[in-house]
């Protein structure tokens, strides 16, 4: 068993930035990640920024990693953490290989993908859209020759573009069939609403529709009602808000999907089903904060839809109500890599503050301001009301401490 100054679980943008921040300030830092490479979800990201430059997640990850290594940060990759315990202010971190201890533990475990159940989704060739992204951009392996993405959201739109950059044919972005689980992700009007804030990403008709016509609910209904049956093209891929996949078929692997026309409420138009031949299917249910370790640690939670689900209670300094436990990145709510990295810096500074005699008030305040600024300038926003979500969790933090 070893005692470390600071332990960080998760080597994505938040964890790596926090690690470098702690190390810069003299802490002895260990980063643990279950994946074999550092970078987390950042690894798969590849897109053009509004200024014309390219955001290459692999390069960004390498830079963050190399900086941390130079500062003496130690890494344990391929190391899943299966439990956490606290006794007398010391956190014990259990992995299969080793047990670690620290008084300053940061959970930067990121996000996981929500499932969308569809008949036939257990066939080989069906994968989450994030898996297709990692196969393509990280491992450079084609997920297939011709596929469909089920679920229309910010993440799936961005990954569709990445797949098309790699010359992989995506025949359509369509919705799942409505049921008790798919709910709003199967409702054309709700999906249209959630897409309005990404309209600037699409150099097409979609953008103009989004920004001008769709301001109010009436226009949204109209937009969905008159939505062209063939879809609107984004990067040459039809986005079909009036089509739903009702089944994935194939004997031993994916051979195709049944695609039906749906009305504005998401109900299937009888007799409209057609078979589309394919060899892979991506399921895009969106992201939710991966908070299982915070839960076994006993951290209080709050369900905030705008942040993507249950998030551990935390303040702007990235502290949780549990002593020595900090959070940063997507575990605190679904946002982009730049916001995650900025939160990581704040968390690192908070850890330094608690662990050493250093007074870093100015730096912490500056870092918190930078996070808000990064959020405002974000190129991709996962939830249109992210600010409302952030306010909710901070208010919950306040009322939790008033009750104590």
């Amino acid at each position, binding site marked *: 068993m070893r005692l470390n100054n600071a332990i960080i679980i998760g080597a994505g943008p938040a964890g790596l930035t926090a690690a470098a921040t702690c190390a810069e300030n003299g802490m002895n830092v260990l980063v643990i990640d279950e994946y074999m490479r550092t970078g987390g979800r950042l690894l798969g990201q590849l897109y053009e920024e509004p200024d014309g430059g390219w955001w290459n997640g692999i390069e960004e990850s390498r830079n963050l990693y190399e900086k941390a290594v130079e500062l003496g940060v130690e890494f344990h990759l391929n190391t899943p953490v299966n439990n956490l315990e606290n006794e007398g202010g010391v956190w014990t971190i259990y992995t299969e290989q080793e047990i670690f201890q620290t008084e300053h533990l940061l959970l930067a475990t990121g996000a*996981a993908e*929500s499932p969308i159940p569809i008949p036939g989704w257990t066939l080989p060739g069906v994968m989450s859209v994030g898996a297709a992204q990692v196969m393509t951009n990280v491992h450079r392996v084609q997920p297939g020759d011709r596929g469909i993405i089920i679920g229309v959201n910010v993440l799936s739109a961005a990954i569709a573009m990445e797949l098309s950059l790699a010359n992989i044919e995506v025949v359509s972005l369509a919705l799942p069939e409505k049921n008790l*689980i798919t709910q709003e992700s199967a409702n054309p009007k709700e999906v249209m609403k959630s897409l309005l804030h990404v309209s600037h990403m699409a150099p097409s008709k979609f953008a103009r529709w989004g920004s001008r016509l769709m301001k109010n609910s009436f226009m949204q209904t109209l937009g969905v009602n008159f939505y062209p049956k063939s879809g609107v093209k984004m990067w040459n891929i039809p986005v079909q808000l009036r089509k739903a996949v009702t089944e994935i*078929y194939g004997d031993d692997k994916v051979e195709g999907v049944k695609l039906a026309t749906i009305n504005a409420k998401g109900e299937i138009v009888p007799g409209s089903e057609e078979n589309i031949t394919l060899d892979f299917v991506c399921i895009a249910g969106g992201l939710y904060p991966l908070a299982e*370790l915070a839960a076994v640690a006993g951290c*209080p939670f709050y369900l905030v839809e705008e942040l993507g689900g249950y998030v551990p209670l935390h303040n702007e300094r990235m502290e949780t109500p549990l002593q020595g436990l900090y959070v940063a990145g997507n575990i605190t709510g679904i946002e982009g890599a730049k916001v995650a990295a900025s939160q990581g810096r704040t968390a690192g500074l908070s850890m330094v503050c608690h662990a050493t005699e250093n007074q870093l008030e100015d730096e912490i305040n500056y870092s918190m301001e930078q996070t808000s600024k990064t959020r405002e300038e974000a190129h991709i926003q996962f939830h249109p009301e992210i600010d409302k979500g952030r306010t909710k969790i901070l208010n919950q933090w306040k009322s939790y401490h008033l009750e104590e």
Partner: protein
Amino acid sequence: MNKDELIICRCEEVNYQTLRDTAHKYQCTSRELKLRTRAGMGYCGGRSCRLMVDKIANSNEGEQDLTYISLKYQPPVRPIKFEDLGGDKN
């Protein structure tokens, strides 16, 4: 393929129809739905189906308690060897 046969919990092979009908019949919480059907109780520890079981159960509940995770997480949150749980290597 019959839509009701749609698999929700892969580990325990619990389908959509079973979950929907159980939730409807007992008007139960997600925890009760899990215990009645075994959905989420397989070797992956509910990592794939937790959210779906929750959604099916929440479809008949009224107000949800926002401060409480309805389907509890238990360690180990990742698969580990039996010997590491306290067994003998032999």
